[in-house]
């Protein structure tokens, strides 16, 4: 029961993350959404480690989460740098401001 509930919580966070990514107009906002999605993934990993009988070694899941966390940080850093460059070139944080390439 707890497993279900927690998985559903995680799924909701995941969905809200996606929603943030596809609706927030600010590129930083989109980045926030991606962080939410990654957190949901980590949460999943921990939940399964804790509550699933199929998991032999729950620590492995935590190690995975650790990796993902580190990657999220790295991505955030690069992403913010790119967004700053975007602001510099296009004068806006709006992800859609950079819409010169299309078709």
């Amino acid at each position, binding site marked *: 029961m707890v497993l279900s509930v927690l998985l559903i919580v995680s799924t909701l966070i995941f969905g809200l993350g*996606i929603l943030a*990514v*596809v*609706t927030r*107009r600010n590129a930083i906002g*989109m980045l926030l959404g991606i962080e939410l999605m990654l957190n949901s993934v980590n949460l999943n990993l921990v939940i399964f480690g804790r509550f699933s009988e199929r998991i032999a070694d729950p620590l492995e899941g935590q190690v995975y989460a650790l990796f993902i966390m580190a990657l999220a940080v790295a991505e955030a850093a690069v992403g913010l740098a790119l967004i700053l460059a975007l602001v510099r070139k296009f004068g806006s944080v709006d*992800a*859609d401001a*950079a*819409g*010169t*390439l*299309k*078709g």
Partner: protein
Amino acid sequence: MNSPLAVPLLLIPLLPLVNFIILIFWGKAAPRSLAILSTACLAAATGIAGYLFLTIPDGPPTTAMSADWFFVDKQFFFQFGIMIDGLAATMALIVTFVSLMVHIYSFGYMEKHEHFGRFFAFLALFTSSMLLLVFSSNLLTMFVAWEGVGLCSYFLIGFYFEKPSAAAAGKKAFITTKLGDLGFITAILILLTIGAQTQTFAQILDFESLKTMLAPRNAAYPLLKDWSFIVGLLLFFAAIGKSAQFPLHVWLPDAMEGPSPVSALIHAATMVVAGVYLVARMFFLFGQDPNLALIITLVGVFTAFMAATIALKSYDLKRVLAYSTISQIGYMMAALGLGSAVASMFHVGTHAFFKALLFLAAGSIFHAYHSLEIRRIRRVAKFMRTTSITFAVGALALAGFPYITAGFFSKEAVLSAAYEKFPWAFWVLALTAGLTAFYMFRLIFLTFFNYPVQSVPKRSSGDDNADENHEPHESSSAMTMPLVILAILSVAAGYFGWLLPVRIGGEIPHGGTNVLLTSIAFAIGGILLAWAIYSARIVKAEAMVENMPTIARFLENKWYWDEIYDATVGRLFRAVTWLVAQFDWYIVDDLYHLFGRLSVRAGMSFRQMHSGSVQIYLLTIAIALLILIFMYNITRFS
């Protein structure tokens, strides 16, 4: 399987052929001397033909030579073969002789023409093809020659290539006869198909073996017998095309655009009777099927009558002669249909002489008057004595003037044949004979004497630069000499009719007194009527026209055949062409374009997905995920 006859027999067509090659390549350099050479060779060929005519043994034909031409499957060999029998020898003699006359005549007629050499080249080629046609021992060889004469006819009709009407006439002649040739080739193909099925492949095209296969007593080839009607019909269609019979007669009058010697040689004496010759050659096929015979008779009789009526109202000297040719060939066809090949060939022979004579004389008149418009040419008798006399002899022969002309005998033979078999045919043909006499003498009375000049529409088939001030004069001896020879023959040939049964077999039909009297009456009556209207002017010609305007217009427009064909076959053809072109353009081609357009349209919509907005891309991914998951879980919800 060469026989001793092979050499002379081959020599006859080969001599002109060699001359053709020489003339076509070097004719420009030394036209006159090469033309003399050509004529000399032709004279030699004529000599050989005459020799053969006199010496070949009676009975079945002798196959002189046959050679494999090509093959399929290494078992079906198509052969190129020549042979000779009485029929062929007779025909060959007529062809070579008339051709020789025309050659001689052409020295005078074409004297100043720039393409003198080429003219002789084509004459030579034609003669060669015609002789090959005559000597061919199987249908395929005959078809080759058949096409060859058609081609030469095309060249020679269109000889004055700068005249659009001449070019058009050449085209019309070629296409119309080619339509007939379809019958020929289809017949050959059907025969071959039958032959392959009955294991008689090699023989089925050969006249002699076909004859034995078709013999009434021979029951070994039922399939062939079943198909003989169709094959006969197709071959007859070819003959119709070549011989300008109804319904393919329309090309011959237009063919008068060619030089007069050509008209004399090809469109009067020789080529146009190739159809008759074909039917005579295949008489074993046509003769044994009453339905075929009836069809041939009907076509012949109808053509004879129809052409004669058109000639009544024709104002072009050569066209009148052309219609008379059509009409006379109708006689020949009718004779064949009536079962008398001999009568037919008799008429072929006499007709060759007097029709060649008439055309050559007409050419002579044209040479002097530069016109063929009979409403303008006057007093020929005064200016051109020889020409007018010979022309009159020819006309008499054509009219069948009793007992002195050859035409009388041959026509009487045809009428007798008709009288024996189909009286209705006899009466129509007799009436036609009367019409023939009438229109020929209409010509003579109009042009030879001083009939008042009528108002003339500007165009006719001749060059219309008739110079009124120029005094017409008699043609050179090169032209008159053949006229005289032919005139003599036109009279004399009738007395040699007895030779034909000897050479061909069968006998000349004699219908007895009734036929004799009827034909004499019609011939004389026609002449008298012409005299009454155009010389004595007892009856006014104009008045007759006014009294019967519909008929006059009907005849003047040649029974509207050209218009009818144009409105039916021509229109159908153009419509199909148009339809195909539209179909090709708007349906077939556009179908492929449609594929292109669809791709571009699809591309446009796929392109719109790349809107440039990154969030839409992400949304697309999310929705794609949704769809994927949904699809894979769809079983849960169903």
